[in-house]
């Protein structure tokens, strides 16, 4: 097994051990191939997540399932392949219900880390918002299928002492989910249960009571990414004007937290007001547009007919639209109602709720009250959005940096600290 073979990676030559896994072989030579389902103990490799997709001799394949051989030509970081890998992560975000701000594993999550790494701000695919099972039945564990990416790591790796599986796939197609065998799970030691939780590349397997052990900001990828910089944008919209730039802001179905964050810049706001004039905005309490705006900042997704109207109005009156905050980008917390039929939501709130009057039977409705939509939609599914600032809420400096950069056409970079979601 000690035969060395020559391979080419991104037109550089390397010598590696024959028969070695391509991911490991590349890693030995300091080349990073992103992976989710793959980790060193699994043999044969799973090849389920497809994130390690590379080109071998002109054909795309997963590198975790590829063994190196003489004369192999590998391409890893071509723009096309980078884009494909980014798209795969975006698909995972669009298909599952990944509410990072409320996830216990945020900062500890391989998939979140890859998202930061690839500079994902928004998924180019529409969100599915399918209703998934959250299983609390086990005494010790929670199975959060909303976050599961079906990588199969736990199914392959977690076994009891007698060699029996604890996790297994049930159902087929889009209904596939991981199920816990409660009896076998009870036989695991606490350390083994924790290992299962850490094995999960996302936050699907949780051990009850262990979830907030490490505070945010001190977790694995928080520390790894401390001095990481978000990728720079290469498209700029050129605008030069003698007058002040005009900015409008609004909050749709959001909590106004992002607007609070806007004010967090403290006295810096004085510098900003030197170049910026606010038009329609909750900050100025101007209700209607009085002139055309350069930039519109939008917080929150669309939950009712009024939100849709305001959003369309913004698109008409603003040259550049920026969605800031999770809710505007993927629906956020309001979108959690997408899993429950609208009727149940309304009945719970106005008829059967604990605080509603006994005998109440009215759901508020009037022609002046906006109608609720069937689902909560992210802004980019209604109109075209030019820029996205993720965060819950985004850092104040981050928001104004983006605004200033777009207005003054300057380059800018954001540190991981400012870019982080939680």
């Amino acid at each position, binding site marked *: 097994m000690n035969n060395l073979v020559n391979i080419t990676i991104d037109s550089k030559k390397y010598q590696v051990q024959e028969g070695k896994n391509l991911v490991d072989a590349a890693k030995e030579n300091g080349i990073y191939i992103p992976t989710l389902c793959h980790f060193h103990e699994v043999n044969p490799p799973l090849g389920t997540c497809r994130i390690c997709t590379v080109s071998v001799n002109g054909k795309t394949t997963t590198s975790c399932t590829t063994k190196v051989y003489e004369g192999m030509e590998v391409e890893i970081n071509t723009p096309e392949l980078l884009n494909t890998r980014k798209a795969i992560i975006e698909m995972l975000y669009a298909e599952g219900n990944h509410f990072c701000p409320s996830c216990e594993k945020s900062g500890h999550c391989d998939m979140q880390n890859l998202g930061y790494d690839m500079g994902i701000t928004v998924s180019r695919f529409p969100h599915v918002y399918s209703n998934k099972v959250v299983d609390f039945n086990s005494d010790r564990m929670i199975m959060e299928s909303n976050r599961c990416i079906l990588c199969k790591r736990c199914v392959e790796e977690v076994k009891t002492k007698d060699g029996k599986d604890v996790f297994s796939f049930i159902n087929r197609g889009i209904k596939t989910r991981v199920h816990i065998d409660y009896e076998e799970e009870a036989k695991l030691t606490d350390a083994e249960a924790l290992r299962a939780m850490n094995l999960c590349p996302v936050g699907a397997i949780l051990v009850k009571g262990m979830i907030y052990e490490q505070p945010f900001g001190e977790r694995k990828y928080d520390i790894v990414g401390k001095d990481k910089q978000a990728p720079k944008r290469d498209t700029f919209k050129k605008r030069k004007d003698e007058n002040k730039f005009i900015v409008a802001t609004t909050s749709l179905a959001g909590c106004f937290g992002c607007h609070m964050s806007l004010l967090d810049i403290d006295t810096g706001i004085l510098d900003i007001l030197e170049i910026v004039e606010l038009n329609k905005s909750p900050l100025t309490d101007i209700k209607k547009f009085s002139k055309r705006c350069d930039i519109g900042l939008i917080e929150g997704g669309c939950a009712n007919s009024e939100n*849709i109207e305001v959003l369309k109005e913004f698109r008409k009156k603003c040259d550049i639209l920026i969605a800031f905050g999770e809710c505007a980008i993927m629906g956020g917390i309001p979108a959690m109602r997408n899993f429950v039929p*609208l009727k149940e939501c309304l009945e719970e709130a106005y008829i059967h709720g604990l605080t509603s009057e006994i005998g109440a039977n009215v759901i508020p409705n009037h022609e002046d009250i906006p109608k609720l939509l069937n689902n909560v939609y992210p802004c980019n599914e209604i109109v075209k959005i030019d820029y996205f600032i993720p965060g819950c809420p985004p850092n104040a400096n981050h928001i104004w940096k983006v605004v200033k950069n777009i207005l003054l056409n300057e380059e800018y970079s954001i540190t991981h600290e400012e870019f982080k979601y939680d």
Partner: protein
Amino acid sequence: MLCHADKEDIDEIKEWSTIIKQSSRCGLGKTSTNGLLTALLKFPVEFQKCLLAESDFNHAFDIEKAVENYDSIIHEIENTYE
């Protein structure tokens, strides 16, 4: 025909097809986009016919449809309690 698409959507179909081709596990996936791509290649005129001019709005989003559930819930309640 609904005619909700604009030119960008066609480009998106092509881009997404490449992604499916590159990242599929089996031959079924790798060839799954061929039908649509061939249609786009051979009958571009048919596709052009129903394209809208480029726009900043998503025309596939129908507000009437999106408030359908709410309307029917309110309607139901009004009928029951009047």
